[in-house]
C-alpha cells in the first residue's frame, strides 16, 4: 500500500523532512501499525512517537482521535498540538 506522509512544524524539523511517500509493507493495515512501523526507525522517530508524547494525526485532512484502517493513497499527517489563533 502506498500512502503519503506529511510532517509539520516541530516534527517536520526533528524528522528533517516535510513529506514522504513510502510503500508500506503488507502487514501494515491500520494507523497503529503505521505508527509502530515509523517507531521502528529508531532515533527521533521512536522518541517523538513514543506512547505519552503529544502529537496529532490527521488522515485525509481530518483529525483522527483513535485507530483507523488505512487505504491506498491516504494522506496521513503527523504534527504537534496546534497553536494558532
Amino acid at each position, binding site marked *: 500500500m502506498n500512502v503519503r506522509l506529511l510532517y509539520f512544524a516541530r516534527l517536520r524539523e526533528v524528522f528533517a523532512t516535510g513529506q514522504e511517500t513510502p510503500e508500506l509493507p503488507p502487514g501494515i493495515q491500520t494507523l497503529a501499525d503505521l505508527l509502530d512501523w515509523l517507531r521502528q526507525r529508531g532515533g527521533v522517530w521512536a522518541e517523538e512517537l513514543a506512547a505519552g508524547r503529544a502529537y496529532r494525526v490527521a488522515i485525509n*485532512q481530518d*483529525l483522527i*482521535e483513535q485507530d483507523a484502517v488505512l487505504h491506498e493513497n491516504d494522506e496521513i499527517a503527523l504534527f*504537534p498540538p496546534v*497553536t*494558532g489563533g
Partner: protein
Amino acid sequence: MKIAVQSEAFDLNAEVAALHQANPKVGAVVSFLGLVRDINEGQGVSTLSLEHYPGMTEKALAQIVEDARQRWEVLDATVIHRVGALQPTEPIVLVAVASGHRGDAFVACEFIMDYLKTRAPFWKKEATAEGEHWVDARESDDRAAARWGGSGK
C-alpha cells in the same frame, strides 16, 4: 461564510460590513481579533512565524463554522487567519459572527475561537535575540474547547 488563510493584513471594517450591510435581519456582529503579544516584555523584538497545513486548514475552519451553525443562529460568519511572519501588535486572526441576537453571536464567536485554537492546523514559532522556539500548546486551550462538549483535541 468566508474562510481565508492569507499572509496579508485584513480590513476589519470591510469584513464586518460584508456580514451585515446587505442583510437587515442582522442585529449583532461579534468580532474577535487576535493579536501578536510582546511576550518578551520588551526584552528584544520578537517575530512570530505561522506555519499551517494547506488544504486541511480551510477544511477544518469550515467544519468549525458549520458546527457553530448547527448549534446557534448564525446568519453569516467570517474567519481569516494569517500565516507567515508577524510582529507584535499585528492581527493574527479574525472571527466575526453575524446573528439576529447578541447572545447567539457572542457564543458562536467564542466557540469558533476555542475550536480554532485546538483543531485548526496552525503552529507558531517565535524568534527572539536568543533564538527560535516553537510555541507550546496550552492546557487552558484544551479546557476551553472541552467545555463545549467536544474532545477539543
